[in-house]
């Protein structure tokens, strides 16, 4: 498949997450404007930083006149989870040229990571697909920021409507079909426990990192043990 066709494929495969993202791009814009940011500053953050949770947090901090360094440090903490998403994505697209991986890194998010992994597990790795997926989310995030700025106060609070549930529901649709075997089930159960405990104890997005690292390590250990047992059985039978 040509590059453009693959980019297009990634772009279209990401449409499923648009309904979950667009309301929050709009609300982000409304809250940014009400925190005193101008239209261009509001749109600028979506285009330059492009990280939903960090943008919402930064808006709150701008509103309370926080020091720029504390805003940047908070952003680093919230986005530390991307280390893990990027390491995981790298295992699929490491054969692609450096400049392309550097470009993919600019827009890697929770949502596009999920779309990419699903595709790569079924069809193999290709950075152009990830780029198309990333561009898709960039477009909807920027567009919804603009629409939110224009509509302003007409947007009802999406959390009051329960629309913040779209995000976990989208991820449930990605995750549940993955849990076909015992190791994946154990990983999910363990991630549940570690994530909830961490979320209750530590601020910010640390729970994605702790659960992501610990539960996957245990999963790898279990899978390795299963492989060893299977090898022993084969040896005994031969």
């Amino acid at each position: 498949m040509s590059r453009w066709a693959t980019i297009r494929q990634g772009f279209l495969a990401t449409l499923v997450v648009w309904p979950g993202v667009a309301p929050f791009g709009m609300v982000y814009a409304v809250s940014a404007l009400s925190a005193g940011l101008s239209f261009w500053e509001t749109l600028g953050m979506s285009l330059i930083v492009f990280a939903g949770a960090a943008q919402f947090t930064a808006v709150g901090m701008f509103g309370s006149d926080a020091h720029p360094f504390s805003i940047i440090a908070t952003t680093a903490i919230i986005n530390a989870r991307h280390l893990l998403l990027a390491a995981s994505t790298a295992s699929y697209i490491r054969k692609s040229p450096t400049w392309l991986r550097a470009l993919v890194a600019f827009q890697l998010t929770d949502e596009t990571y999920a779309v990419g992994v699903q595709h790569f597990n079924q069809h193999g790795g290709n950075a152009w697909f990830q780029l198309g997926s990333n561009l898709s989310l960039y477009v909807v995030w920027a567009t919804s920021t603009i629409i939110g700025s224009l509509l302003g106060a007409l947007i009802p609070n999406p959390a009051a409507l329960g629309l913040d549930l779209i995000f976990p529901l989208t991820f449930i649709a990605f995750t549940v079909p993955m849990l076909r075997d015992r190791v994946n089930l154990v990983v999910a159960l363990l991630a549940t426990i570690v994530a909830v405990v961490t979320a209750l104890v530590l601020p910010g997005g640390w729970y994605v990192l702790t659960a992501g690292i610990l539960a996957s390590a245990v999963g790898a250990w279990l899978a390795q043990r299963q492989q060893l047992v299977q090898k022993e059985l084969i040896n005994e039978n031969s």
Partner: protein
Amino acid sequence: MSIWLTYAGMAAVTYAARAIPLLLLRNDPPPWLALWLKYVPPAVFTALIVPAVVTQMGDYGRVLQLGPAVGAAVVGALVAWRTANAIVTVGVGMVAFWLIRLVVG
């Protein structure tokens, strides 16, 4: 102007987290790392789902909150299990959420 400098700092730390692993992990990873990374997606996905469903931001950080979202997530999981379709899962899950909230109040 300082706000744009703040953006530059925010963008730099965000890009670093996204780019460093993508640029450094070039060669075939050792088998233990490959196996580890294989189980990162289910672990990360679960971590993104569960706290969003069972906790809420309180005045002093996150607190446990078992409300209609939990029922909606269970319905969503069943639909995802049967259909593996994101749009259907989100649609049925949201309807379940509104119905449960209507009944429970």
